[in-house]
């Protein structure tokens, strides 16, 4: 029990994932700044932001709306993200959970933050938040199938294994899945899914600043917004980690391999950051078309290729 709580709260759960995620978020912001010829924020900036929101800022509750749900939603988001983080990071850190079929659980847990955002947005009673919520819903509908196809591809590649630990072990003993054509296709699909899950440009319509002024988060302030920030930090770490686990060999935690693990995470984050900095925002219709048509097509091609052993 104590071990489980430790797993959940400290390592590799809440605390660890949040701290690493915050550093990655700083990395993202720094790279963004360098792309834009700026100097960028100091290293501790994500922590300043988080502590300011958590400790200092006042939380304003919506008058027209449901304050309780409005406040609970971000907590659920943190909970979902942390749970997903535990399930993703334990196998990655070479700790077997003995839980066969955790891949599907992770898949569901990863959608909890998005759903919590929607619930929170609708509970705030703000029309712009409602627009943001409906956009987020459409976005989830469009990318979830693609994400499922990606996971299906991995399962097929690994010989019907639903266990993340086995998948990582299979890669470490054989070759990483990204080394094949289908693996590359799945990687591309995965990157775009992460982009949409993190709601980064070009898929940041739910919180489009220039259109609907933060959209789903428009009414959040203070500690509630700090929870959302925390979720974002955690998601910013676990999603790239999940992709690495699925396709890029996972982590190995001995000697020089730690460096490789760090570099792998940074590389995936770098790709995400560069995509987000060189594209304008898509419209929701374009996003649906992009995922439902093109990404699904790509994923299906990958599945066919896997079937033929490429």
């Amino acid at each position: 029990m104590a071990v489980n709580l430790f797993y959940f709260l400290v390592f590799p759960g809440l605390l660890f994932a949040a701290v690493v995620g915050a550093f990655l978020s700083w990395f993202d912001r720094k790279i963004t700044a360098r792309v834009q010829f700026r100097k960028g924020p100091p290293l501790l900036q994500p922590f300043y932001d988080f502590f300011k929101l958590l400790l200092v800022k006042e939380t304003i509750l919506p008058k027209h709306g449901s304050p309780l749900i409005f406040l609970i939603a971000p907590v659920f988001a943190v909970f979902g993200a942390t749970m997903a983080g535990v399930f993703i990071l334990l196998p990655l850190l070479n700790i077997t959970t003995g839980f066969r079929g955790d891949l599907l659980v992770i898949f569901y847990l990863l959608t909890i933050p998005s759903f919590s955002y929607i619930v929170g947005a609708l509970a705030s009673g703000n029309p712009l938040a409602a627009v943001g919520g409906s956009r987020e819903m459409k976005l989830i509908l469009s990318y979830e199938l693609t994400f499922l196809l990606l996971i299906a591809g991995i399962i097929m590649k690994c010989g019907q294994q639903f266990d993340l630990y086995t998948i990582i072990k299979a890669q470490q003993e054989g070759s990483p899945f990204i080394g094949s054509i289908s693996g590359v296709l799945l990687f591309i699909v995965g990157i775009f899914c992460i982009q949409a899950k993190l709601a980064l440009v070009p898929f940041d319509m739910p919180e489009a600043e220039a259109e609907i002024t933060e959209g789903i988060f428009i009414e959040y302030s203070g500690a509630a917004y700090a929870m959302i920030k925390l979720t974002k930090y955690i998601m910013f770490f676990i999603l790239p980690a999940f992709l690495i686990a699925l396709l890029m060999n996972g982590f190995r935690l001995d000697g020089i391999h730690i460096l490789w693990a760090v570099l792998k995470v940074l590389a995936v984050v770098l790709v995400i950051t560069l995509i987000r900095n060189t594209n304008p925002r898509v419209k929701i219709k374009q996003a649906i078309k992009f995922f439902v048509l093109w990404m699904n097509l790509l994923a299906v091609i990958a599945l066919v290729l896997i079937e033929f052993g490429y």
Partner: protein
Amino acid sequence: MEEKVKNITTDEQQEYVINMGPQHPSTHGVLRLVVSLQGEKVISLQPHIGYIHRGIEKMCESITYQQIIHLTDRMDYLSAHINNEAVCLTVEKALEVEIPDRIKVIRTIMSELTRIQSHQLWWASFGMDLGGLTCFFYGLRDREKILDIFEETCGSRMIVSYNCPGGLMYDVHPNFQKRVKEFIKYFRKILPEYDQLLSGNVIFHERSKGIGKLSLEDAISYGITGPCGRASGFSCDVRKHEPYSAYDRIKFKEVLFTEGDTYHRYIARIDEMWESMNIIEQLIDNIPEGPYAVKMKPVIKLPEGEYYQRVETARGELGVFIISDGNKNPYRVKFRSPNFVNLSVLNHIAKGFKIADLVAIGGSLDLVIPDIDR
């Protein structure tokens, strides 16, 4: 108008109303758009103006002609120099002062530099409206270089107040020619980069092509001028049709398109930057010698009558109309501001599009709110 108001107040037909602004990042100031939506579709929208109405026209009636310059600066602050030029030209026309060539040429160069920096800022904020934050920083980075030139010559970065009735406040800085040439050389290299970053992107094409179409007839009947009008095929460049300052002695192309959608309003502005650079290059090497200002009386009194002068600002045609009763203050001043007219078309072209398109269309009209409200 009445019909629109009715639409906004009923909520039976699943319509709901949102307020964009007065504080909204994509209205570029304090414009307020009352948008009634069905889902995300814009049913109708109604601009509310006046949130930055400072009464400039009324203030002009109690100050002298030299002082007007400092208020027109703050009207359309991105075309500050061109606004001033309009007032100066009106006063000079009324007094029938012959302006030396040197002043004309310097005014033209400064106007074109102003136009480029205005379009750069527009490009930056248009990119930001579409979600491409990097565009914002690219645009502002290059804009700083023009502001440096302004600062060296005029002493101020943005609100230059460089014109005065009868010429210029002071002579150009000795470095002026060198710096301008350096900038042109630099910017010719950089401008294709803008294309790569934004207009080379598939997402951008899909978001802008065919969005917010404005036909030639509508452009003319609404009186849309500037790059927006020219993108619809309305040949309305005052520099071409009624040349002022040094525009009659240079060759340049009037950028004209026929499609009139957001994409072509974008391309029209990019092409205008190229043309502006051409104009500057033709003039920069042969600035004639001579005085930088004509000796004027310390108190300017216009003869009784009505005077009108129009110029081409970065956003369209700016008209200055002055009625004088022979005093040192004008009797009435009226500015025909391009933004006010351009705003009027927003409801017409944005109807039926999504709210994301509304932001793109509003961005492509390039509105400066203090110029609307004056």
